[in-house]
């Protein structure tokens, strides 16, 4: 019985193609919004947790330049106001495990015939401790090599791949801005950072070497940022206050003058990011639920119209032996088919949008099986819930009156 009813439900939908499509629109939008929400929410969650675990959560990053906002240091790092002396002042503070000055220089690196645009990070050995990120092949450079401006480099995985391909980079040389560096190590894979930045696309060299060989004269003693490792997450706030106080003193700032540096607490950044995502997710969830309800009401409406239009058909069916249950089942199946078809299209649309979104915002979005299953389950419930009343109305018709209509 079900097989014939499904076929008939399908032909009823096909007979009113445009109407069916318009009816499904609410479901399509609702499901697409929910799928998109879950995909972005899930993607960001993954992103944030991997970013946190990659950064080491007890990290403060001091950048040159002031920033009025507490969150992202937008516009910071442009003025050259951090100096090597600042690092020593910070390194001795309470709760500070290590402080690594870093400077980042966009460069064109050359190894043999290969040529690759990447970033050179000039830093001290403290960098490996602060970031909890070390070479998995070869070794890091030492304090000695840094002070002596040794021409040694450690490659991130991506840089190593691009410059050397299948060849072994160890002991080979890389030319950057006319200076030749010997590769002494390759960093462990670190993955993507915020906004899809490939954190493995770097060449790490001693800070002294970077300042002398790669940076313009005017900036020889200035650095972009200082990464500071703190012993405990609870000490992040007091430590960042102590650092700010010390830097103001070292920089001889008058009371009342604005900071010429910014202390970024990355945990706070990720928190902001998470809550922003949560807000977006909530919005999408609201749009999704409202659309689903509107979609459900649309289905109910069209099913009521359909029952009225097909009263005579219902009468004929009853006259040849359709029970009330059979009539109800048929109209329920039609409502269900509408909602599930809408859901299917919505899942497709949502997945497409999620893929497009991941390209646009640099997040890895993921449409999970459970999200799709949930979407179908919710749509089925909506179809049954909103289809029930029209179907019951059809089933309650008296055969003779339906036939007379």
């Amino acid at each position, binding site marked *: *019985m079900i*097989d*014939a*009813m499904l076929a*008939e439900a399908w*032909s*009823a939908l096909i*007979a009113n193609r445009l109407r069916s499509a318009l009816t499904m629109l609410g479901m399509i939008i609702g499901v697409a919004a929910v799928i998109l929400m879950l995909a972005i929410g899930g993607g960001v969650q993954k992103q944030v947790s991997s970013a946190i675990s990659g950064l080491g959560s007890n990290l403060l990053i001091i950048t040159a330049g002031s920033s009025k906002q507490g969150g992202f240091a937008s516009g910071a790092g442009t003025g050259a106001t951090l100096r090597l002396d600042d690092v020593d002042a910070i390194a001795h503070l309470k709760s500070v495990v290590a402080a690594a000055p870093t400077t980042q220089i966009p460069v064109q690196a050359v190894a043999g015939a290969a040529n690759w645009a990447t970033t050179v990070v000039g830093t001290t050995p403290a960098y490996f401790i602060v970031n909890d990120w070390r070479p998995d092949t070869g070794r890091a450079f030492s304090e000695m090599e840094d002070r002596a401006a040794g021409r040694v480099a450690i490659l991130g995985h991506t840089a190593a791949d691009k410059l050397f391909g299948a060849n072994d980079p160890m002991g080979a040389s890389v030319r950057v801005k006319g200076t030749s560096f010997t590769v002494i190590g390759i960093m462990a894979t670190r993955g993507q950072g915020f906004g899809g930045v490939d954190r493995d696309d770097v060449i790490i060299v001693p800070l002294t070497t970077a300042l002398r060989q790669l940076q313009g004269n005017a900036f020889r003693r200035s650095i972009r940022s200082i990464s500071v490792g703190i012993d405990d997450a609870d000490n992040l706030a007091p430590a960042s206050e102590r650092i700010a106080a010390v830097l103001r003193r070292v920089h001889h700032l008058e009371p009342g003058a604005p900071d010429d540096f910014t202390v970024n607490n990355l945990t706070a950044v990720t928190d902001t990011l998470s809550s922003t995502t949560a807000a977006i997710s909530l919005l999408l969830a609201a749009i999704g639920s409202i659309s689903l309800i509107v979609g459900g009401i649309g289905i109910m409406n069209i099913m009521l119209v359909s029952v009225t239009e097909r009263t*005579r*058909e219902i009468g*004929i*069916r*009853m*006259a*040849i*032996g*359709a*029970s*009330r*249950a*059979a009539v109800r089942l048929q109209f329920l199946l039609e409502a269900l088919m509408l909602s599930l078809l809408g859901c299917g299209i919505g899942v497709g649309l949502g997945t497409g949008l999620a893929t497009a979104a991941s390209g646009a915002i640099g997040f890895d979005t993921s449409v999970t099986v459970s999200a799709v299953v949930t979407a179908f389950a919710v749509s089925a419930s909506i179809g049954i819930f909103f289809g029930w009343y029209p179907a019951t109305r059809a089933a309650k018709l*008296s*055969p*003779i009156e339906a*036939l007379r209509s």
Partner: protein
Amino acid sequence: MTGNPILAPIPAPVLALSDVVKDYVGEAGTFRALHGVSMTVAHGELMAIMGPSGSGKSTLMNIIGCLDSPTTGIYRFEGTDTASLSERALARMRNSGIGFIFQSFNLLPRLSALGNVALPLVYSGLGKAEREAKAQALLAKVGLADKQRSRPAQLSGGQQQRVAVARALANAPKLLLADEPTGALDTKTGAEVLGLFKSLNREQRVTVVIVTHDPEVARATDRVVRIQDGRVFYDGPPTEAALYGHAEVAA
């Protein structure tokens, strides 16, 4: 339900109406369409119901076909009081106990001839293959083997009515009801459909009740019931007087 074995040799009639009254309640008040109709139809009968327009023939047929119920009075189908039957049991009866043929065919326009004939079989729970085989055989029986895939709109009136007959026969009902089956057909196709009823009655002992205005159709039956103003007026063999309504004048 048929009860006492001692009475078994006397077969229960297919249907028995006793003092059936039907009132239509509308805004304009209550209209009594049937004023206490009593009659009995035995297995294997071929009978006609005649009467002027508005006399209550269709009202009576709808009650016999379990599409409607009497306001008062009792309608027994094979000895069972239909008032005691559940909705489900009534649906089953319409499905396989009784075949109903309408003047306006009442085929479903979206389904093919085959689909229409197979529909009662859907509701009696048959599988697809079985349904199709059966529906094909029925269509062949009414001479439409080559029209299986046609929609009703692609068929002539006579062909549509034959599809309707095939549909009514799908579950091999004991009782075939036809409310002016030839009304929309020309004399020749009308005669063909009538011939179909006759052979069903003679060869398969299907009880057939036909509502008709046409004396020639009624002449082919064994018994004529004349109705006027909701009352049975004549019940007997198809005499000329019965066929042409002189009986009404005589009474």
